[in-house]
């Protein structure tokens, strides 16, 4: 009886499982294997080289540059877009006129495809003729060459990413805010708590499950989302705005070096897995689930 039930369960899982194995787990294993092999070209037979590809990685200055960039990119975009998302959610959750329109307005950047957005921002950032430089000129400042200067290129990418992501995260916070019980707030008011105290003691702790979810997603996105690089900077100037995933793409499809690309991919997979794991372990205890 138990056996039959087991079999049935496996049968039910089979479609999903076979898809997962075929398109996720098997390629992942192959990537690990590939990162330990090398061949002169795609027609030559590959040979096992152990950790040699990882040795190349350590000597590769571009690799360290993209890791550093990715670190700043994550640090620069994730907390800011989460803070903005909470602020916007609180604002459009309040008793104001035209709530629907305001929510839509904040959500618009999320609706637009990344490639479209990047093409528009390319002209915003363009020196002299771009929107930002024209605005700066109106107040008498000669604007920088946003994407063409190594000092501002990555920051410009981050600003656009925050603009794009904050609205998306706002939706999750908005949903969470609407599940909070009004009695808690009534009680707090009776006790004479100010708005900041209410936010710090009630709203923010109760939003923690949402924050964890958003945080994981935002961090993963900081590694996964590189569409805009294709349009805006192609990782330049001189790798100033290059990110790990874009470098993987370049290695695989421009340098045609699938072995080194696999090695980079392994680094990325391990990094992402560690981030997700660390977040779950660290935050899980501190979060108040109802």
């Amino acid at each position, binding site marked *: 009886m138990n056996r039959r039930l087991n079999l049935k369960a496996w049968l039910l899982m089979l479609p999903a499982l076979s898809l997962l194995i075929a398109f996720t787990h098997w390629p992942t294993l192959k990537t690990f294997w590939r990162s330990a092999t090398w061949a002169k*070209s795609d027609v030559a037979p590959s040979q096992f080289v152990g950790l040699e590809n990882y040795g190349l990685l350590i000597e590769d200055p571009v690799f360290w540059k993209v890791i550093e960039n990715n670190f700043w990119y994550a640090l620069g975009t994730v907390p800011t877009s989460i803070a903005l998302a909470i602020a916007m959610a609180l604002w459009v959750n309040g008793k104001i006129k035209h709530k629907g329109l305001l929510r839509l307005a904040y959500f618009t950047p999320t609706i637009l495809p990344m490639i479209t957005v990047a093409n528009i921002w390319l002209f915003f950032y363009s*020196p002299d*003729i771009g929107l930002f430089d024209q605005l700066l000129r109106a107040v008498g400042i000669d604007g920088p060459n946003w*994407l*063409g200067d190594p000092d501002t290129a990555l920051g410009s990418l981050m600003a656009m990413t925050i603009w794009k992501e904050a609205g998306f995260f706002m939706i999750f916070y908005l949903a969470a805010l609407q599940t909070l019980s009004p009695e808690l707030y009534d009680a707090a008011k009776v006790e004479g708590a100010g708005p900041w105290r209410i936010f710090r003691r009630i709203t923010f702790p109760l939003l923690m499950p949402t924050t964890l979810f958003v945080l994981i997603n935002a961090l993963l996105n900081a590694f996964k989302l590189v569409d805009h690089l294709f349009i805006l900077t192609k990782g330049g100037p*001189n790798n100033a705005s290059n990110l790990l995933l874009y470098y993987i793409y370049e290695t695989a499809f*421009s340098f045609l070096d699938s072995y080194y690309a696999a090695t980079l991919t392994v680094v990325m997979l391990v990094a992402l897995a560690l981030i997700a794991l660390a977040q779950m372990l660290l935050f899980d205890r501190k979060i108040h689930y109802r």
Partner: protein
Amino acid sequence: MRTTNKNLAALALSAVLGFTGAVSAATELTMYYPVAVGGALTKIVDGMIEEFEVQNPDIDVTAIYAGNYNDARVKALAALQSGKPAQLSVMFSIDIHELRDLEAIDAFDDLVKTDAEREWLDGFYPALMENGKADGKTWGIPFQRSTIVMYYNKDAFRAAGLDPEKPPTTWEEFAAVGKKLVKKDANGNVEQWGAMIPSTGYPYWMFAALAKQNGEVLMNQAGNETYFDKPGVIAALEYWQDLGKKYAIMPEGVIEWGTLRQNFLEQKTAMMWHSTGNLTTVKNNASFDFGVAKLPGKKELGSPTGGGNFYIFKNSSPQEKAAALKLVQFMTSPKQAAHWSKATGYMGVSPAAYQTEILQDYVKTFPPAAVARDQLTYATAELATHEAGRVRKFLDDALQAALTGQMSAKKAMEDAQAQARRVLRRYQ
């Protein structure tokens, strides 16, 4: 669908004529082509293929439009590796060494048989053949080819008191003329730059022009040696830096390829170096009088060629290869090349193409169309090496590092040369 119809037609024809012998089946060709599906070019290519099929009812051609050069190469190679048929493709001319390393392509010298075919092979502009040759053989036939030219705003020239029919021809003139063209507002902010040379997207391509003008090339014909650290090459980069730093006729830092044309059309720069591929768009959108000129020179004039060549894949039957050769010959015949050039702005690939009535008339009514052709005399090959993607990136990064002031030209180019030497050593 087309195949079935044609086979039916062939069947009907043979029935009518009373052939009892075997009708040879149509040879089917699959051609990969580097353009996005639905782009303006697809219609032109489709039209040419249709005409070819009418002339050659026994050959059936399917064109697969596969995105940009990189995508087309990846897709064609993936198709070949998975055993799908692909007999020919237009791909980046500079892919030649890597395609040979993959043993994917055949030399045209081994495919041509008749004297007429050999003559056809010799009929192209030598400058356009440079990127198609290696080891003394021809592996790529020029088709979708371009070069860099200088677009300039004649109205801006007039406003600055310059002769609009005399664009600068030397580096010194270029800097001097550029200086006169810079316009500033009351606060000292630049309203119009003298010139812009793009340094994103394809910086190595623009730089090849500057190097050639200084009498240098960037690599050898075999594609296993680069010359990035030669004094003349470094001097070319220093001149490029100086255009921003010393002469201040160009913004400092990196200049975006994608928005440059808009900068020119909005008169934010009076001159720009750009691909001939922009000619038709600039012609249709410029609100001012503009001219097109050869790039200026230092020791000599010069520009690299660019664009796509026809390749024939090794992994095809002799019959398919013969049919593919026929198609390539048709597409590059003077009449088709002329038609193609006029419709797209790409170059006519042979002197014979420019002698056709179509192009003779076009050049007469629109002289800028001839500038690219005239510049071919001074043209050089585009940067093509083994491991081309990597080597290109070493150079691109070095150029951007120098232009943004992160490194001196000398240091940047020496680094790039050392890196390129490291990856090319295996191919020497």
